[in-house]
């Protein structure tokens, strides 16, 4: 488990480092995620080494964004003043994503099955 955490933290540092030196618009944690995935895919890191640590981190992931979410208390006025724009945008965009991804999956997924 400690080995798993160490590797995950190492990938995070590597991702953050890459983000800083190349000035990529991709966050360091996403770069770390991609590198870890590639290391698993090409069998550079054995799956068993990171399995348990990754599971414990992702199973209750939602807990970790509570402090950031509480930060909304700083923006209550901004939300109150823009509630209609925010509401329409979020609902409209949610349907756009739901339907476009769904139809693409229905169309291309069927073709794959044949």
């Amino acid at each position, binding site marked *: 488990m400690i080995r798993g955490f160490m590797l995950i933290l190492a990938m995070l540092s590597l991702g953050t480092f890459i983000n800083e030196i190349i000035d990529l618009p991709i966050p360091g944690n996403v770069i*770390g995620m991609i590198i870890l995935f590639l290391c698993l895919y090409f069998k550079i890191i054995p799956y068993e080494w990171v399995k348990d640590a990754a599971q414990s981190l992702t199973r209750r992931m939602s807990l*970790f964004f509570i402090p950031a979410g509480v930060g*909304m*208390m700083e923006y209550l006025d901004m939300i109150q003043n823009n509630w209609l724009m925010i509401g*329409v945008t*979020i609902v409209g965009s*949610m349907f756009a994503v739901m339907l*476009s*991804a769904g139809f693409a999956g229905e*169309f291309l997924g069927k073709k794959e099955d044949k």
Partner: protein
Amino acid sequence: MEVINHLFESETFALAATLGLFLIFEAIYQKVKTPLLNPVLMTIITLIVILKLSDVQYETYQANTRMIHFMLGPSVVALGVLLYEQLKTIGKNAVAILSATFLGSVMGVLSVILIGKLFGGGEDLIISMVPKSVTTPIAMAVSAQNGGIPSMTAVFVIIVGVLGASIGPLIVPRVFKTAIAKGLAMGSCAHGIGTAQAIQMGMVEGAISGLSIGLMGVFTTLVTPGILALFY
């Protein structure tokens, strides 16, 4: 109230209160199972009410719960392991899944900018909404990287998740026939909260929805700077 104000000065209390409230709301959610009582949303609302009433500054709370917030980074990296696990089982439909999540992320970013501009939204507010269909840690990073307000983004992510998880099951099974399409629709629009509902539809739906979380995160990260540059 002064007592509570004083208690929140301590790191241990702030951490214990956050974890405790989360556990309570999780237990309630297990009993009632309505997506509207999402434990994260309920914990956030309750904490805001408590902090406001007892006059605790967000800065104080933020500093004392830094440990919880820190875990976001490693948990995103750990998603790479989930991606690997699911890619093994879903390899056959890789083209459909990759195209659908790519299209979903482009549509997500574009629709926020267009609708937001139409309704007169300001630049920082619109950018904060752009990554709303992506799992929170990635969404916050995308927001920060492109000039949004990460903590507002975290709120929008939860709102869209709760909405997608409650409206999705009423629409998705009627519109789409294949399990692949259902999973993609749920996971792309409502990330983890939507995936919890997709699992109720079936194991394939659940796995594909889970995979969409990671892919939406990667694609949205990649397309956001380019699309934003067209408008701002």
